[in-house]
C-alpha cells in the first residue's frame, strides 16, 4: 500500500491563484461522467475573491436553476442531474436550499443508474425526515427493493437507512428482514439490509417484527463472507441489547468466530486483513457483542473465550509485524476492546491484572494516543476490587503524566485516573500533586481539579487540619475556580467539628495576612473568625482589634456579597468581643454603610447597628450565638462534580464495588434522603431576619464523626448502606425493601409470589434535583428464569425528573429451577455523564416455595425417602447475627417454607417443609436447622429431590443467620 500521507499532498491546490484561468484549476481528470457545467460552477465559486462575490454568483446560479426547473421545456435527465448536483454543492457551502426536491425525486425514479444515484444522494444529504417528501419517494424505493437489481436495491436500502424516520420504518421494516435472510440475496444486498434494519430498529424498535428471521440472523455469524458477518454483527449486537434471552445462542457463535480470527495467521483473511492484522473491525465488533452478556455459562465456551483473550494479550507482547502506525492501531484497537470485555466481566483476577500491566506499559508509550487510551481505560480498572491495587502501582507514572504531558486532553485523563485510584493510603500524595498541578493547569480544567481535590481531601481526611489546609491552599492557588460549593463545605465541616475550629481560625487568620488574598479567602476567613475568632483571641498577635482591622482592611476591595458577609461577622464580633463594639458601631454608622446604594448592605448596617444599641447582652448573646451544626446532606461538591461533564467524573466515587471492606466508599447512602441543596452559610444564616437555621441536626450526627456521616450513611442509618450483594441477600427472606441506593438513585422493591408466578414492582427514585436522561432499566436473564416485562412504559426510555419516582412492573414466571438470578441493568445520563449499574434482581428460587404442613410421621417418612447422598446438602456455619429464636423463625417463614412444630425431638431445632413450584417441575424440600448457642454455630440440612436445588437452597439460607 502506498504511503498515503506522502501522496495526499496539495498538488493542484498550489496552482490556485485568485483570478487564474478557470480551465487551469479544474482537475485534470474528472472521474466518471464529469459534469462539465458543474465543474465550471465549482471553479467559479473557488475564484470568488470575497464572500459577497460568492453569494452573488450563487444567487445567479440559483435563479438560473429555478428558471430551468420552471421552464416550459422538459429537462432531460442529464441536465436535471447536473442542476441537482449544483444545488447539492451550494447546500454544502452552507446555503439553504428550498427547491429541487421534486427534480431529485424524479431522478431517483429514473431507470438510469447515475440519475438514480444522484437523486438518492440529494435526498439523503438534504432531507432528514420531511414526511411529505418521504411519501413521494416511498414508491420509487419500493420498486427498487423489488427490482432484483442488487445495485438498485442497495441504493434504496441506503436511502432508507439515511432517512431512518418512523415513516420509513412503517413502510419498509417488514420487508427488510426478508431481504436479509433470503437465500438468493447477493452478499452486498445482505450487508446493506443488515445495517439498514439496524438503523430502523434503533429508531423505532416496535416496527421491526421479530420472528423466524431472527434465528437465521444469528447464524449470519457463521457466514462465509466476512463482509456479511461484519455488517450482521452490528445488527445482532443491537438486537441482543434489547432481547438478550432470545439471542443467547449468539454467544457461542461469536466466541468461535472470534477464536478463528484471533488464531488465524496474518494473511489468512486476505482482503480482510488490515496491515497484517486479521479482520480488526470484525474482531472489535465481536468483542462488543460479547459485552452484552455476562461470562458464558458453558465451561467449554468460556474456556475458548478466555483463551482468545489471553491470545490477544500475548500478541501485544510480540514484536510488531509492521512498523506502520496502522498496524499497531488496528492491533491495539482489538487489545483495548479485549480489555473492555475483561473489565466488563470483572471476574477473572488474573486477566484483570494482566490487562492492568499491559496498560501500564502503554502509559509510557511514545504514541500520545496510546497513553491517552491507557489512562482512560485504567480509570475503569481502578474501580474493580481485583485490579485497584495493581492500578495503584502506576501512581508515579500517572503523576509524571500530569506534570509533563503536552496535550491537555491527556493531562485531563491523568487527573481523572489519579482521582479514581485515590484511597486512604495515597490520598495525601495525590492531593498534593493535584494541588501542585493546579498552579499551572489549563483554565479549562481548573474548576474540575478544584472539585476533585476538595472531594478527596474531605473523603480521606484523617486529621481535619490537613483538610482545612488543603481547601485554603485551593483558594490560594485557584481562588477564581473555587466555587461556592467548595467554600460552603469547608465552613460546614469546621462548624460541625469542634476539634478543628481553633486550628481553622488560626490558619485563616494567617492566610488573611497576605497582602493580596483572594476574595473567597476573605469570605471563608470572615465567616470562621466571626464564629471562632474567640479561640485565638488570647494571643496578642491576634487579639480582637487585630482580627477586626485585618478583616476590615479587605472590606473596601470586596464585592457586595462579601461585604454583606463581613457586616455579619462584625456584629458577631460585637457579641464575641465587647471591646470592639465602639469601633464596629462607628463603622456601621458611617454614611458609606447606612446610606449605601445597595439595599442589602444598607439594611444590614441599619439593623446591626440598632441591634447592637438596643439589645441587652443576653439577647445579643442569644441572637448571635454560635451556629448550630449543619444537618448532614450529600456533599454538594460531589453533586457538582457529577453535574459537570466528563464520563468517569464521579464514577469512581459512585462505584460501590470498590474497596467493599472499608467504610470510606460512597456506594452508601446519604442519611437525609430529601434534597441536595446546601444551606447557604452566607450572612442570612447568621440569623437576624431569618428564623433559626432550617433544620436541627439529628442528635446522632454530633460533631464527632462528621465525615463518616456524610459519606458513609451506615453510621447514621445502619439499614440503608449495604453493598448491592448484601442488599440482595437480605431479599432472600423478604419481599419488600430498598434494593439499591447511592447518592443519585434509590431503587425500591415490592414483590409478591404465588406458585410459579411473581409480580415485582420496582421503584426508581431520583434523589437529585437534576433530571436523569435516557433512563432505561432493563432486565437481563443469564439463567433459566424467564421474566416477562409486561408493563414498563413509565420507566423505560425516558426522563426521570429531579426528586421524582417512577415505577416499573415485572411479571415473572418460573419455568424451571435456576441458580442465578436475573440481572437488572440500569443506564441513564446524569448531567451529561453516562451512569450504568447492574444489580441482581432479588428473585431467588425459594420465592416459589409453597409451604407444606405435615405431621411428624409424614415428615420422617419423606426425610427417609430423600436419603441419597446427592439429595442432601448440609452446612455448618458460625452465627453472624445474635441467635434469637423469634428472628430465626421469621426468617425461615420469610424464606418460604412451612415451620413444623413437634417434629424435631429437640425443641430448639427448626424443621420446615415446602414445595418449589416451577412450570416444568415441582421440587419437594425438607429442611432442618440446629442452633448451638454455646458454640454460636448452626447446622443446616436440606433434602430435596434435586441435587442442585438442595445445594442452592442450603447456600442461600446459610447466609441468613
Amino acid at each position, binding site marked *: 500500500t502506498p504511503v498515503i500521507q506522502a501522496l495526499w499532498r496539495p498538488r493542484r491546490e498550489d496552482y490556485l491563484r485568485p483570478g487564474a484561468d478557470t480551465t487551469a484549476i479544474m*482537475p485534470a481528470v474528472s472521474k466518471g461522467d464529469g459534469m462539465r457545467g458543474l465543474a465550471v460552477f465549482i471553479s467559479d465559486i473557488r475564484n470568488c475573491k470575497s464572500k459577497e462575490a460568492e453569494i452573488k454568483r450563487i444567487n445567479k446560479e440559483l435563479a438560473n436553476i429555478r428558471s430551468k426547473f420552471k421552464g416550459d421545456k422538459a429537462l432531460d435527465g442529464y441536465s436535471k442531474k447536473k442542476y441537482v448536483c449544483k444545488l447539492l454543492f451550494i447546500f454544502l457551502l452552507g446555503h439553504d436550499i428550498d427547491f429541487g426536491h421534486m427534480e431529485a425525486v424524479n431522478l431517483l425514479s429514473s431507470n438510469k443508474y447515475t440519475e438514480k444515484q444522484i437523486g438518492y444522494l440529494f435526498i439523503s444529504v438534504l432531507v432528514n425526515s420531511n414526511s411529505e417528501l418521504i411519501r413521494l419517494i416511498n414508491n420509487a424505493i419500493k420498486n427498487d427493493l423489488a427490482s432484483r437489481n442488487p445495485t438498485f436495491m442497495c441504493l434504496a436500502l441506503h436511502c432508507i437507512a439515511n432517512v431512518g424516520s418512523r415513516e420509513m420504518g412503517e413502510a419498509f421494516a417488514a420487508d427488510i428482514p426478508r431481504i436479509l435472510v433470503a437465500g438468493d440475496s447477493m452478499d452486498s444486498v445482505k450487508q446493506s439490509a443488515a445495517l439498514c434494519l439496524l438503523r430502523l430498529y434503533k429508531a423505532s424498535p416496535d416496527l421491526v417484527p421479530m420472528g423466524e428471521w431472527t434465528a437465521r440472523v444469528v447464524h449470519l455469524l457463521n457466514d462465509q463472507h466476512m463482509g456479511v458477518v461484519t*455488517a450482521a454483527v452490528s445488527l445482532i449486537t443491537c438486537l441482543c441489547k434489547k432481547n438478550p434471552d432470545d439471542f443467547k445462542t449468539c454467544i457461542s457463535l461469536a466466541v468461535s468466530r472470534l477464536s478463528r480470527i484471533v488464531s488465524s495467521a496474518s494473511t489468512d483473511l486476505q482482503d480482510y486483513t488490515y496491515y497484517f492484522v486479521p479482520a480488526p473491525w470484525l474482531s472489535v465488533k465481536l468483542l462488543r457483542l460479547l459485552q452484552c452478556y455476562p461470562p458464558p455459562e458453558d465451561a467449554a465456551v468460556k474456556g475458548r473465550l478466555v483463551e482468545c483473550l489471553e491470545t490477544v494479550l500475548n500478541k501485544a507482547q510480540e514484536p510488531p509485524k509492521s512498523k506502520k502506525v496502522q498496524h499497531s492501531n488496528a492491533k491495539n484497537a482489538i487489545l483495548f476492546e479485549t480489555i473492555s470485555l475483561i473489565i466488563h466481566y470483572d471476574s477473572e483476577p488474573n486477566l484483570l491484572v494482566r490487562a492492568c500491566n499491559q496498560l501500564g506499559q502503554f502509559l509510557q508509550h511514545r504514541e500520545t*494516543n496510546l497513553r491517552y487510551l491507557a489512562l482512560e481505560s485504567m480509570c475503569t480498572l481502578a474501580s474493580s476490587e481485583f485490579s485497584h491495587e495493581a492500578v495503584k502501582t502506576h501512581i508515579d507514572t500517572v503523576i509524571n503524566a500530569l506534570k509533563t504531558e503536552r496535550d491537555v486532553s491527556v493531562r485531563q485523563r491523568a487527573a481523572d485516573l489519579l482521582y479514581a485510584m485515590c484511597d486512604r493510603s495515597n490520598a495525601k500524595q495525590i492531593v498534593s500533586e493535584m494541588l501542585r498541578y493546579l498552579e499551572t493547569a489549563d483554565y479549562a480544567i481548573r474548576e474540575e481539579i478544584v472539585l476533585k481535590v476538595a472531594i478527596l481531601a474531605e473523603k480521606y481526611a484523617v486529621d481535619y487540619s490537613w483538610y482545612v489546609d488543603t481547601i485554603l491552599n485551593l483558594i490560594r492557588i485557584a481562588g477564581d475556580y473555587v466555587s461556592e460549593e467548595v467554600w460552603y463545605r469547608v465552613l460546614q465541616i469546621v462548624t460541625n467539628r469542634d476539634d478543628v475550629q481553633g486550628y481553622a481560625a488560626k490558619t485563616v487568620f494567617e492566610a488573611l495576612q497576605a497582602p493580596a488574598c483572594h476574595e473567597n479567602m476573605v469570605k471563608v476567613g470572615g465567616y470562621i473568625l466571626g464564629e471562632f475568632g474567640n479561640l485565638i483571641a488570647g494571643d496578642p498577635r491576634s487579639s480582637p482589634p487585630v482580627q477586626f482591622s485585618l478583616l476590615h482592611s479587605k472590606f473596601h476591595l470586596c464585592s457586595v456579597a462579601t461585604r454583606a458577609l463581613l457586616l455579619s461577622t462584625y456584629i458577631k464580633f460585637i457579641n464575641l468581643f465587647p471591646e470592639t463594639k465602639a469601633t464596629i458601631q462607628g463603622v456601621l454608622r458611617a454614611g458609606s454603610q447606612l446610606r449605601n446604594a445597595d439595599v442589602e448592605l444598607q439594611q444590614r448596617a441599619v439593623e446591626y447597628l440598632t441591634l447592637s444599641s438596643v439589645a441587652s447582652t443576653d439577647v445579643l448573646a442569644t441572637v448571635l450565638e454560635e451556629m448550630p451544626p449543619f444537618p448532614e446532606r450529600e456533599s454538594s461538591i460531589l453533586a457538582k462534580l457529577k453535574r459537570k461533564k466528563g464520563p468517569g467524573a464521579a464514577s469512581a466515587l459512585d462505584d460501590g464495588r470498590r474497596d467493599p471492606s472499608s467504610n470510606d466508599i460512597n456506594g452508601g447512602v446519604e442519611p437525609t434522603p430529601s434534597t441536595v441543596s446546601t444551606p447557604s452559610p452566607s450572612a442570612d444564616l447568621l440569623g437576624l431576619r431569618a428564623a433559626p437555621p432550617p433544620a436541627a441536626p439529628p442528635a446522632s450526627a454530633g460533631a464527632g464523626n462528621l465525615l463518616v456521616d456524610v459519606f458513609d450513611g451506615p453510621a447514621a442509618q445502619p439499614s440503608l448502606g449495604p453493598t448491592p450483594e448484601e442488599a440482595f441477600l437480605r431479599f432472600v427472606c423478604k419481599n419488600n425493601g430498598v434494593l439499591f441506593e447511592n447518592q443519585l438513585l434509590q431503587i425500591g422493591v415490592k414483590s409478591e409470589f404465588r406458585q410459579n408466578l411473581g409480580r415485582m414492582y420496582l421503584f426508581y427514585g431520583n434523589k437529585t434535583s437534576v433530571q436523569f436522561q435516557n433512563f432505561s432499566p432493563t432486565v437481563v436473564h443469564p439463567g433459566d428464569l424467564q421474566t416477562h416485562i409486561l408493563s414498563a412504559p413509565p420507566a423505560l426510555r425516558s426522563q426521570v425528573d429531579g426528586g421524582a419516582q417512577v415505577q416499573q412492573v415485572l411479571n415473572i414466571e418460573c419455568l424451571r429451577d435456576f441458580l442465578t438470578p436475573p440481572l437488572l441493568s440500569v443506564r441513564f445520563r446524569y448531567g451529561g455523564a453516562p451512569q450504568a449499574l447492574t444489580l441482581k434482581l432479588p428473585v431467588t428460587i425459594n420465592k416459589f416455595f409453597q409451604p407444606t404442613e405435615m405431621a411428624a410421621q409424614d415428615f420422617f417418612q419423606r426425610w427417609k425417602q430423600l436419603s441419597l447422598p446427592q439429595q442432601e446438602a448440609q452446612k455448618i456455619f458460625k452465627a453472624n447475627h445474635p441467635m434469637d429464636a423469634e428472628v430465626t423463625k421469621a426468617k425461615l417463614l420469610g424464606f418460604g417454607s412451612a415451620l413444623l412444630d413437634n417434629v424435631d425431638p429437640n425443641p430448639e431445632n427448626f424443621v420446615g417443609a415446602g414445595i418449589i413450584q416451577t412450570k416444568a417441575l415441582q421440587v419437594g424440600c425438607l429442611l432442618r436447622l440446629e442452633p448451638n448457642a454455646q458454640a454460636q454455630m448452626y447446622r443446616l440440612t436440606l433434602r430435596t429431590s434435586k441435587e442442585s436445588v438442595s445445594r442452592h437452597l442450603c447456600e442461600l439460607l446459610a447466609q441468613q443467620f
Partner: protein
Amino acid sequence: MSWDEFGECMRFMLLFSRQGKLRLQKWYLATSDKERKKMVRELMQVVLARKPKMCSFLEWRDLKVVYKRYASLYFCCAIEGQDNELITLELIHRYVELLDKYFGSVCELDIIFNFEKAYFILDEFLMGGDVQDTSKKSVLKAIEQADLLQEEDESPRSVLEEMGLA
C-alpha cells in the same frame, strides 16, 4: 433522541480544510440544519486549534471526537462514549485509502470537484454510521461497477452541448 441504549455508532463525519472550509459532511442521526451548522463551526474551531502530535481523540460535548489530518484536510468523526477510538482512526484511514485508490493520488481538489463520488465511496464503506465492508476490493468493485453503468448510460457530450448552446 439518543441511541445509547442500543449501542454505539458514529454520529457524523466531517471533512474540512486547514482554512476551515467544510468539504464533506455526513450525518448519521437526524439533526436540524441550525444545529448542524453550529456543531460544525464549533468543532472546526476546536480541532483547528490543536497542535500537531497531540492526541487524536478529544471529548467534545457528550461525544468523543476522533480526527486525523491528511495534508491540507482534516477528517473528523464523532462517536459515542463507549466506541473504540483506535478502530475509528483506522476507519478514517481506510476511507482515505479508498479515495486514494479511486482518484489515484487523491488531493483536496478531487474531493471538491467530485464531492458526489466522495459521498458514493463513503456510502459503500459506511452505512448508518457503521462499517458495512472493510475490504478495499469489495468497496471499490462496487464503485467501479457503478461507473461502468454510468458510461453505458451516457454518451459523452460536446462542450457546446454542455453549455446549452447546441
